[in-house]
């Protein structure tokens, strides 16, 4: 999983974190076990992606709750990015 610069302090400075799972949701659950402070920057306590958090799986954007079922395989790159918004 590729971590945006703004959140790398929650990952010990790492740009990438190895996570496991069969779906995007699984991967985020695994992240919650490994790096809980980082995971809750991405999802709220209901497990929903925060409104301005984007997740790309091999370049395809995942956004809706149902998309958390998107499958991932060995070697899949999951990229987290902030939406361009705010002021």
């Amino acid at each position: 999983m590729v971590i945006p610069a703004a959140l790398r302090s929650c990952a010990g400075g790492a740009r990438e974190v190895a996570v496991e799972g069969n779906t995007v949701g699984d991967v985020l659950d695994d992240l919650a076990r490994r790096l809980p402070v980082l995971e809750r920057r991405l999802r709220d306590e209901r497990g929903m992606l925060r409104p301005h958090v984007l997740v790309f799986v091999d370049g395809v954007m995942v956004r809706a709750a149902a998309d958390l079922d998107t499958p991932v395989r060995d070697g899949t790159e999951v990229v987290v990015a902030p939406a361009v918004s705010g002021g």
Partner: protein
Amino acid sequence: MRDHPHMSETIVLIGTRKGLVTARSADRRAWTVEPLQFANKDVYAVALDTRRDPPRLFAGVGTGHWGPLLAHSDDLGATWNEPELAPIAFPEGSGAALARIWQVQPAAAGQPGVVYAGVEPHALFRSEDGGLSFALVEGLWNHPHRSEWLPGGGGACLHTVLTHPSDPDWLMVAMSTAGVYRSADRGVTWQPANRGIQATYLPEDQRFPEYGQCVHKVAMHPGRPDRLFAQNHFGVYRSDDGGDSWATIESGLPSNFGFPIVVHPHRPDWVYVFPLLADEERMPPTLRCRVYRSEDAGAGWRPLEAGLPPDPYHAAVLRDAMCSDGGEPAGIYFGTRAGEVFASVDDGDTWTALATHLPDVLTVRAALIP
């Protein structure tokens, strides 16, 4: 670690729209303003828990895209930490998610380890481990009035938590725009406490509802806990019976609109407000940057402006952006949306600029660290 462990200092935490600023002083005249922390993040709630040694500092931080967080510091602000488990989170099944931390309030000295947090959406959380982990106060969350509580201009915030100096079962909260609620059983049951408080935005024959008032801040003097002061959205009030009833004390003020209200830490009759023209005109009356002080629990008021900017002033002081430090003599502080923080060590008679050119100030808290 502190450089001078035997020298007392006063610490002022300043939460702004774009970060946290800490100021320190040994004499409350010369101030060291530390570099901004939590850059670009809004800091709506700060607190200093001086019941602990070393004191624990708190910052409720909004990180924008990445959600809210509660950080604490046990080294007087040098470093900030966040527990592995989210300190404040709505429980599964509540259907809610934390949107903003509006208030972090250590309980009275007789309840060591107890810290309350008021949040958005309207909810109260309690910690019994010094603020590392909090639990939702279910009695308020499940209150039958909840569905009728509307968000104020700032959101559906529980912005004020008052605890009693000797009765740990007594709690009071204030919410925009639900009004004031009280509990006599440590938060199991809650009753509205708004009798006598007007909701000026309602139709004329409905202006004294049981709840739904837009309260902006409530203050109590710990030495006289039955007496409470409230600054409302149009209206300044006092209660002498612990919130059973309220009476207006706004005669003598240039406006009854404003956000903060602060009681002097050693003089229960001395109260401070920062009036603004109106909700649609959030600037001081006659554009004078003036604090108003009552020395008789609201019977009369006098403007204080010595040392404050003489130029036309257009900025407001928000609900948590005025405080005292509990010192002797007391220090009184306030910060404005123009990014200035002013301090007085003579009860408000004269003021000096503690910090200028900050981002707009959301909250100020201060304490003398022995």
